[in-house]
């Protein structure tokens, strides 16, 4: 029967091509839409990924901005403080691996506003300390207990032509530049112009050495982020938390839809392709109703006929899967040229980042998962095979005498 099947596929190229195209479309949509969703999710995770944090916790401060006007060093508007005891309480929330406190401050100078991060250099795994440890491009970081030293952001250093060994002024004090870091997109939430030892930043802001205004939290299982946020709120009172989910909200409608409903969209896309392939395969079977009647008239059992269409469906499904996967990969690649949502403004405004640091324009971090490819192949193969079988099964229920006179 293989010869018969080969012959049929060879001579019914248009119909076969229609089935392959339909199957391929479904598989490609499944892969591309899944990749698009994962791209948006990755884009949402990116600002936190570089600092190994799952959420950044701040305390909203109801103090009126009018009380914080004028030049000098002060905390960002609307940001309250946590004391070290509260940071400890956050560490104790079930599901939290690490909680690291930092201090974000602003220096309102005569010509510009500079953002400063007070960092505990002992905390190198999570938060801005990770930037100082991993993102150095010149000089060194500072050590625990060291004072009078600063690390600059690359863009800030370039803008003000500052180099290692030179001095930088913050408030009324000067600091020796000991290093320069390059903050990648994946660490934007913790980006600042200048990094100082935490104790010195606290002194500049007139805070006690136990006070911070930003806590970077690493969660054991990212699925627990929401529960951890609730746990923190329960222990220390109302907080504001930046999480991948909150960043998705910042992305806007398309991002929300893509990230949240990509799986559903992919399934709908796959189903659409299945329906198309089902219709095309039904057409393939339908135009051969007389042939099916003839085959049964000359002694083919129903199972023989169904077997032929099952094999044809399998072959067409396989071809459709191969074409669809290739098409899906190309589509996903094209989607990677979509500009990633600019979360820099949202994340750095929270951190008080200065506009002297330009936002890097990058594409959506689209990645193709093997699971999506396998699912697409499975849906294509099983869908086409089943469609062929079901359509043939229905056609063989007709008496051969009726099939032979079918139009």
């Amino acid at each position: 029967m293989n010869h018969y099947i080969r012959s049929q596929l060879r001579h019914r190229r248009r119909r076969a091509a229609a089935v392959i195209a339909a199957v391929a479309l479904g598989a490609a949509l499944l892969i591309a839409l899944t990749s698009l969703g994962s791209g948006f999710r990755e884009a949402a995770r990116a600002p936190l990924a570089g600092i190994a944090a799952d959420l950044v916790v701040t305390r909203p401060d109801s103090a009126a901005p009018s009380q914080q006007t004028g030049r000098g060093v002060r905390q960002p508007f609307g940001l309250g403080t946590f004391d070290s005891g509260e940071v400890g309480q956050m560490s104790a929330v079930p599901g939290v691996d690490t909680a690291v406190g930092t201090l974000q401050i602003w220096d309102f100078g005569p010509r510009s506003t500079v953002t400063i991060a007070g960092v505990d250099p002992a905390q190198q795994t999570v938060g801005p300390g990770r930037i100082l440890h991993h993102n150095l491009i010149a000089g060194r970081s500072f050590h625990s207990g060291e004072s009078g030293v600063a690390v600059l952001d690359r863009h800030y250093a370039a803008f003000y032509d500052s180099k290692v060994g030179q001095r930088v002024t913050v408030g009324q004090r000067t600091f020796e530049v000991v290093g320069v870091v390059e903050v990648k997109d994946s660490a934007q939430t913790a980006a600042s112009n200048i990094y100082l030892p935490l104790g010195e930043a606290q002194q500049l802001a007139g805070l006690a050495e136990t006070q911070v205004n930003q806590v970077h939290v690493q969660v054991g299982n990212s699925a627990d982020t929401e529960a951890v946020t609730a746990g923190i709120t329960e222990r220390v009172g109302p907080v504001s938390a930046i999480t991948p989910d909150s960043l998705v909200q910042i992305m806007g409608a398309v991002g929300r839809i893509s990230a949240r409903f990509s799986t559903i969209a992919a399934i709908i896309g796959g189903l659409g392709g299945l329906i198309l392939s089902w219709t095309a395969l039904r057409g393939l079977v339908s135009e051969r109703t007389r042939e099916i009647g003839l085959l049964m008239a000359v002694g083919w059992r129903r199972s023989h006929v169904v077997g032929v269409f099952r094999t044809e469906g399998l072959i067409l499904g396989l071809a459709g899967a191969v074409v669809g996967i290739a098409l899906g990969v190309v589509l996903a690649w094209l989607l990677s040229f979509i500009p990633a949502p600019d979360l820099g403004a949202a994340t750095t405004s929270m951190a008080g980042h200065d506009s002297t640091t330009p936002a890097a324009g990058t594409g959506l971090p689209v990645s193709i998962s093997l699971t999506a490819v396998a699912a697409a192949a499975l849906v294509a193969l099983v869908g086409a095979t089943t469609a062929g079988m079901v359509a043939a099964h229905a056609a063989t229920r007709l008496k051969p005498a009726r099939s032979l006179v079918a139009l």
Partner: protein
Amino acid sequence: MSSDILKAEGIRKSFGKVTALAGVDLAIRAGEFLAIVGRSGSGKSTLLNLLAGLDAPDSGRISSQGRVLPTGEDELADWRREHVGLVFQAFHLIPTLSALENVAIPLYPRRMSDTARRERAGNCLELVGLSHRTGHRPGQLSGGEQQRVAIARALVGDPSLVLADEPTGNLDTTTGQEILDMFERLRHETGFALVVVTHDEKVAAAADRQIRLQDGVEVA
């Protein structure tokens, strides 16, 4: 054991309110040439379909060599594959297949090698004088050649009974006569019984025996 290779008793068949067959009795003996004659709408093609098991009667009994025909579609297919060859007025060749492949179609469900299948199909094409046309598709053949391919397909399973529905109906007189002569030659060579449904009196005249149908009943 009965010498009738196929026997129909009290066959009735209606399509909605139209009665196609209203109680027909018929016996086909081994090796004979039987013509079922009647005008259009007399029920002769319906009777042939029922005899071949391509459709089911509303009532009555059809038996083959003393055994009632099975009712299951697969069992009927098995019976046709082993015992019956069918020839249609419209040839019913598969347009995408070559003459040889069309002839081999009934052999696909059989357990035999592709070589044996092709050899058997080639022999049958030779029997009908088309050994030079094995690779041609139906669209490349004349009406007479297509019907000869259909006859070869009917004979490829070595049947004891060939049922032909207006086998010369789509052919000119000369070609129709050639087909009829071929049937006769092959019947004598291989010994199958031949039942031909026709409205052509010349075809009917060539048969050993005739049954005339009118309005679904046999008439004298």
